[in-house]
Structures are given as structure tokens and as C-alpha cells.
């Protein structure tokens, strides 16, 4: 399980897949991998979680084996209206329902998402081969609170260069 497959060209019946999977296909594969208790790694698209998750970042979504998503976690969930896969932050927990919102779209909250729509939580973000830790550690609580009261985008606006610098400093040198 730890060794990578041989690099030669595969048999014509078996091809390295270059197809772009739809949201539903991605969700199906993620659920299948999670059923084995393993994280699912893929490239995220969009800007709703900037600057913590950017378009093209590689994210790992782990199954919720260790319990429900908590305040500040970035949850992977199926949006009840669009049925798209979303990666947005949990801003509050109310029993089995979770207030979720993208960090950079305070005007478009996802609303109260039921527990059954949540597939997993983001446990790793990689950017250009480096781990990006800012946004997934203990500071996620503060980010959630700031986001909830509408302060996060304001802070970003005024402290954008500082945030970028902070992000770089928190990126480890670990490569894949």
C-alpha cells in the first residue's frame, strides 16, 4: 500500500484517467474511499475559501470517524440546493445542524447544513507542493468567529499583504 505502482505505460484497457470528474462522481469516489477509513486527496477549485484554500490547491478530506465537524473545521459537504461538493467552514453548531460559509463570501452563507450532508473535513492543504497549515490549526476557531461577525473579509482587505506573508511563513517545506 505504501509503494507506488510501476511507471510504465499501462495496458490499453487500463488507462491513467485524464477525465474530469463531475461533482457527483467526485462525491461517489470520496464516499467509497472514506468507507475504507482513508482520506481522499484531490484538487479544489474556486475562490470561496481564499486565502486559506485557493483555486488549484490540493486538499485531503478525511472521513468523520472521530466525530462530528467542530467549530472552525472546513467541512466537505453536498450543498442541499445545488448538490455540488463544497468545502466551507463551520461557523456554528446547533445539534445536528451546522452553519457553514465560505471564508471569502460572507454575503453568501450556505445556511444550516444537516449532518447527513457532511461527508468529511479538510485535514490537509497543499499549495505548490507545500503544506499550508494556516486555517486548519487552532486558529480556525478565531477565523470562524471573525467570519461569523463579518470581520474576516474586512481584516483581509486591510491586512491582505500581512496575511499573504503569514501564509508563506506557515507553509512548511515538506514536499510530496
Amino acid at each position, binding site marked *: 500500500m505504501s509503494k507506488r505502482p510501476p511507471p510504465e505505460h499501462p*495496458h490499453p*484497457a*487500463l*488507462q491513467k484517467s485524464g477525465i474530469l470528474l463531475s461533482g457527483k462522481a467526485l462525491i461517489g469516489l470520496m464516499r467509497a474511499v472514506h468507507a475504507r477509513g482513508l482520506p481522499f486527496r484531490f484538487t479544489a477549485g474556486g475562490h470561496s475559501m481564499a486565502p486559506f484554500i485557493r483555486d488549484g490547491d490540493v486538499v485531503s478530506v478525511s472521513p468523520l470517524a472521530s466525530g462530528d465537524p467542530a467549530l472552525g473545521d472546513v467541512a466537505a459537504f453536498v450543498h442541499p440546493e445545488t448538490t455540488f461538493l463544497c468545502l466551507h467552514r463551520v461557523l456554528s453548531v446547533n445539534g445536528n445542524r451546522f452553519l457553514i460559509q465560505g471564508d471569502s463570501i460572507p454575503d453568501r452563507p450556505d445556511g444550516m447544513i444537516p449532518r447527513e450532508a457532511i461527508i468529511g473535513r479538510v485535514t490537509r492543504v497543499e499549495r505548490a507542493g507545500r503544506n499550508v497549515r494556516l486555517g486548519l490549526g487552532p486558529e480556525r476557531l478565531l477565523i470562524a468567529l471573525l467570519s461569523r461577525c463579518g470581520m474576516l473579509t474586512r481584516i483581509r482587505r486591510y491586512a491582505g499583504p500581512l496575511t499573504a506573508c503569514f501564509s508563506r511563513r506557515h507553509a512548511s517545506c515538506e514536499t510530496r
Partner: protein
Amino acid sequence: MDMVFSHSDDVVSREIDGALIIVPLTAGVGDMEDDLFSMNETGTEIWNLLDGKKTIREIVDALAGQYRADAGEIEADVSGIVKELLKRRMIVEATAA
């Protein structure tokens, strides 16, 4: 030809829009980034028959009967795909039921 194979626990497969997608669970992660494979129609059919019960001979016979094709040709196809899947550890040898 009397060997029996089943899908490895180190892969996850799903049929999506008519194509079989195989995700190897490399280093404890289901990785869409490097290691996503898709099977063509023939490969998918053979993959589905590698169920841990049927021998390679039974698979060849089943396909030869279904397609009324030359058994030798089908055997070569099945052997080639099985060899590839074994090499990539997508299937493992199983004990016949």
C-alpha cells in the same frame, strides 16, 4: 488458467458515467492527483468477473460464449489485463470457492 483473482483491498473502484474508475489507495490515501485509472469496456467486463470465485478459464469461457469470439484471442486479452492489474496490485490471487 485455474487461478482465481479478486480485487485488492488497496483500490476503490466505481462505475461513473459508464466508465470504470479505479483509485489506488496509495500510502493510505485515495489519491485523485496521480493515480486515477479508467478501464475501457472490455477491461470493465473482465474487472467485474474477477470476483474471487471464477477461475481465469471460467472468465474466458464466459466471454467467449457471450461474444462468440475466438477463445484464444479472448484468453490473450484476459491474460494481458490480469497481468497488468497484478503488476499494479489492483487484484490479488484468491482461493477458489
